[in-house]
Structure formats: C-alpha cells, structure tokens
C-alpha cells in the first residue's frame, strides 16, 4: 500500500516536472528563424540577447505629445506569460510562445505588430536589434 502511494507520488512529480518542462522556452519555426536571421544581417549582431529583450520590454518612455508613460508592459503586463489588456479594455492573449503557441509564428504578423506597437511606445519603428532581442526574450520564457 505504502509502496503504491510512493510510486503514485513519484509518478505525479514526474508528470508535473515534464509538464513544466513542456511549457518552458519555445523554438521558432523556419520562417521566424529566417526573419530573425534577417534582423541579424541588417543589425550586424552576432546573436541576440534575451536579457536585452527583457530590459527593452520593461523600459518606460514618456510620449512627446500625450505626456504619458508608455511601455510594452502598459498593455502586456510585466509578465508576457500572463494575458494583458489594451488601453480600451480588450483582453490580449499572452505573448510568450510557451503559453500561447500562435505567438511569433507568422513573420508578417510579427512585423505588423512591431510597427504598430513600436510607434505607439517609442514614436518610431524598432531597430532590427531591438526586434531580435525581443523575440529572443519571448522565446526564452
């Protein structure tokens, strides 16, 4: 009986461990990999940094006209694994591919949203290096 319980516990621990492994980090598909490669080429970067991406994601900036503080985190929250909310209250699905498989799978979508949201936060488009770091950060979560 005791043995049964023990093996049951061991099995559950193992199941929990493999489940948590399954939801940590993600691999970009072929198209996204070549998009990231193109960022490397145009930025001259050898590699991108998840840590730089994390800093970029959390950095705050005051909008020159609206005079309000804006950041990626304004809508996405400081945890990309959590759902966020737009400024008009619409729920945004989590950004991290580990919890939302659809994220960072379509280069066209990625580029469109970078353009939309970089303009909103930074009043300019993001640089290839910023984009590369950003995706690397998201993939690392």
């Amino acid at each position: 009986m005791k043995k049964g319980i023990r093996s049951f516990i061991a099995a559950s621990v193992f199941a929990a461990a493999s489940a948590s492994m399954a939801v940590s980090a993600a691999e970009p598909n072929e198209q996204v990999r070549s998009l990231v490669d193109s960022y490397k080429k145009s930025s001259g970067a050898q590699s991108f940094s998840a840590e730089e991406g994390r800093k970029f994601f959390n950095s705050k900036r005051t909008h020159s006209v609206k005079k309000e503080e804006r950041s990626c985190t304004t809508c996405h929250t400081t945890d990309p694994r959590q759902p966020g909310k737009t400024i008009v209250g619409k729920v945004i699905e989590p950004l991290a591919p580990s919890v939302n498989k659809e994220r960072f799978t379509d280069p066209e979508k990625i580029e469109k949203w970078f353009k939309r949201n970089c303009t909103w936060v930074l009043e300019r488009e993001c640089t290839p290096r910023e984009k590369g770091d950003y995706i690397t950060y998201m993939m690392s979560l």
Partner: protein
Amino acid sequence: MKIKKFILPLLSAGALVAAMTAFAPAVFADGYERGERGDSEERGESEGRNGRNGGRIIPPADNAAYKQECSSCHFLYQPGLLPARSWEAVMGATGKHFGEDLALDEATVKELLAYLTANGADKQTNRRSTRIAASIDSSSAPTRITEVPYMVKEHRKIKKETFSRPSIKTFSNCGACHTKGAEGNFEEDFVKIPKN
C-alpha cells in the same frame, strides 16, 4: 370599481418587487449590477423586441479581415454602428487611428473600407442602426461611436465613474457590459455592469 382594477395589479407588482429585493443580494452576488440606466419603460422603449423594421439586432461583423485587424485592440464594432461617411473618415486616417498607426497595407484598407461602408448604419434596416443614423446631423461624420448622439442619449444615466471601473475602462468598451454585444444584441436584458 375602476380604481380597484387599477390598484390590484399595482399591488401585486409591488409585492413582486419586494420579493425580488429580498433576493437581491443573492441575485447580484455575481459582481455585476443592473438597472443603472433605468428600466426600458422609462426610456420609452416599451414596444416589442422586434418592434420595427429589421428588429433591434445589429448584424454582427462577419468579415474575416475586419475581425483580425480591428478586434485585437478593441470591441469588434458592428459596421451598423456608424454611417458609411463616418467609416470613410475612419479608414481615411489609419495612420492616425485615435493616435495609433495601424500599419495596414493598402489592400487591407481598401477591403475594410468597402465592407464597412456597404454595411454602415445608413444601409441597415434594424432599429438601432436607423436610430443611430437619424441622430447624426447630415453635415457631420463622427468617427467616435461614443460621440454619436443616440449613443450619448442611451447611456446618459451611466456615471463617468462607472465607465472608468478597471474592468470597463472606457465608454468604448461595449462588450464589458453588453454581454451579447459581439452578436449585435444590445438589449437591456443582457446588460451586466461589472461592479469593479
């Protein structure tokens, strides 16, 4: 005799209200409140749900590009919520969409414009769209649905503080209270105003 006939139903209605009030805490314990903007009688909307023309349901948005491009950020406003000329104004300024660059390509803008103008409030037969269209001066083309006179009037009893509750945020967040808003159903029966 006539008076009695009048009073009896009134009394039973009173009893019903009293009974409902007694149950109120249980009924409203779901984090929502109701009836903030008065009942439908008060608003002069006592006729049947499908009282006129094409009913009261605004046809839901059914264009794939429109859904994808527009509802990521906000409530999927039915084209029947604004007249065609307003949609023209909205789609003519996608680079400055209420302060945001939508980064839409030309083909998408064209498709969305065609869809929205073909289904604008002035092209609809449902009662709400026709009222929306009729409430707007023909010389103006408002781009904010929240500034349409009909909308302002319909929500006049909602306090500003109510709209700024965290789960509502803005007047433009239709779906926060209109639980069937996405289906184009803005009936009072399906309004649930979150308390927080």
